[in-house]
């Protein structure tokens, strides 16, 4: 089983990101479960969402306590919460930020993770460029498709199109592709 915890703030599409990730996994023939942390929802408040992906049906109903992937949509949360809690030793970290790991103050926290498992990407800026909106979720899903074998870009694109039909979906797909290419080094 692959477990994901997504941290962000209300309005950034954290819950949508978890839903689209589960749909992408479903599109690949996998079982997936996505659910939010059910806080009082308001713009700017910390929001957490969870995803589980597995080849077998998923029965667990607890929040994700030991994630294999941590997506941080808002780097200002590093000072407010213990985001790394429970992260597995071979886990992945994907951070939406223009800053380096050192400037973010998380260099030590991610030092022991395998090579290529930690990525920072200016997802909000990419989202502005493609969507004219500060919602980094599609960008981050595209980036993760480049980081691991768990998600395929085509499945992510299909999930985005289902969530946002028409032109909005096209723009989100373009943003996800741009992120995918930038991580793979061919952008």
């Amino acid at each position: 089983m692959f477990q994901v915890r997504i941290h962000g703030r209300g309005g950034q599409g954290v819950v949508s990101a978890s839903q689209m990730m589960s749909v992408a996994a479903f599109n690949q023939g996998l079982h997936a479960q996505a659910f939010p942390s059910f806080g009082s929802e308001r713009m700017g408040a910390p929001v957490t969402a969870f995803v589980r992906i597995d080849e077998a049906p998923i029965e667990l109903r607890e929040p994700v306590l030991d994630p294999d992937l941590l997506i941080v949509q808002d780097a200002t949360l590093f000072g407010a919460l213990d985001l790394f809690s429970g992260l597995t030793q071979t886990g992945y970290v994907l951070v939406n930020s223009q800053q380096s790991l050192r400037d973010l103050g998380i260099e030590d926290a991610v030092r022991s993770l395998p090579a290529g498992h930690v990525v920072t990407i200016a997802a909000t800026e990419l989202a502005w460029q493609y969507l004219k909106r500060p919602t980094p979720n599609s960008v981050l899903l595209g980036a993760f498709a480049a980081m691991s074998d768990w998600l395929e870009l085509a499945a992510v694109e299909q999930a985005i199109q289902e969530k946002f039909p028409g032109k909005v979906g096209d723009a989100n797909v373009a943003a996800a592709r741009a992120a995918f290419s930038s991580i793979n080094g061919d952008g």
Partner: protein
Amino acid sequence: MLRQMEGSHAVAESVALCRPRVVACYPITPQTHIVEHLGMLVKRGDLADCEYINVESEFAALSACIGASAMGARTYTATASQGLLYMMEAVYNTAGLGLPVVMTLGNRAIGAPINIWNDHSDAMAAQNAGWIQLFVETNQQAVDVHIQAFRLAETTSLPVMVCMDGFILTHAHERIDMPDQAQVDRFLPAFEPQQMLDPDNPVTIGAMVGPEAFTEVRYLAHHKQLEALGTIEEQAQEFRDIFGRDSGGLVMSHFAEDAETVVVTLGSVIGTIKSVISELRDRGESIGALTIRSMRPFPKTRVGRMLKNARRVVVLEKAMAAGIGGILAQHVRWSLGTYSVPIYSVIAGLGGRPITRPSLRRLLDRAVKDQLELTHFLDLNIEEVDRELVRQRSGALSGPAAENILRDIGALRASKTG
């Protein structure tokens, strides 16, 4: 067809496949996406011949359902938490009148203090209202049980409440095998009411009944509930035959038959419990679980038979009756009759507190050694409770307990980070 979808949307589409003629809802918190999605299906024309009534309160929602059902229409509504309490008079009336309304309850806590999160307090507040109450473990069961609920309601002339965990199921996206219309039509025939208001053949529904007949009417309600025990099992079997999957009947067993320790529970928490039970069984522990799927009627005989050979029973539930403790635990005790099996009552997950594997491991490790107290509150912060009790006993104006505890916990957090 396999689809990845939110629990609420899946239930809305399942209800739509049942061709309700009237859906009456109050769309504001506490509510789920179910009624929003049904509203869209009606507006888009995907759910034909259905009157969708947006009403001004939960009381009005169920009252409209009562009227529509008495006119012979297949009728549906959904609510949760305080919404159920606000319609409570109509909840009793629906059952008392024998009207086969189907209602989804997206289970949530009841205030005060205000809390929007999941537990089973709302369902337990209505356990004696005369409705059939079915609990589901997964969103697939939620989809399937709604289809069975209409059939069951109309066969028995009793209203059916489908209880699904608020947020944990209603807001979870997962894989659903959505039935097709032909399958549903095969399983669920057109509604043929047992009683109907008809201007051409006027009758009274809801007459005043005095002491001369009230006991008989009430006895009949009890009798009908007990008869439904058989109907639920028969229809579950028929569902299996038509839809090709087992969505369960009165109870669901997970190695419960021959286990020394049996965990009894309600709703979706069984998923996490199963995971811990698998670990314990791998270690050689004789442990299983039994999920109660029908809270009303309560399958007393079946539960007693399945538990009588156990060495101990652990009843884990997301509700509590202040002054006595576990509610499901009382039902299990009653079901065991004269069998002297020890029952440990565990209260867990109140107001949305996560029930985690680490907590369940600690709990069941102690339970299998008979080291658990007879009533146990999972993950209770007893230091904080004691602090508030000291405050209250000080004799001064100690203030509201909930706010005091929040302030304490906030202070503790600040001292950790500061």
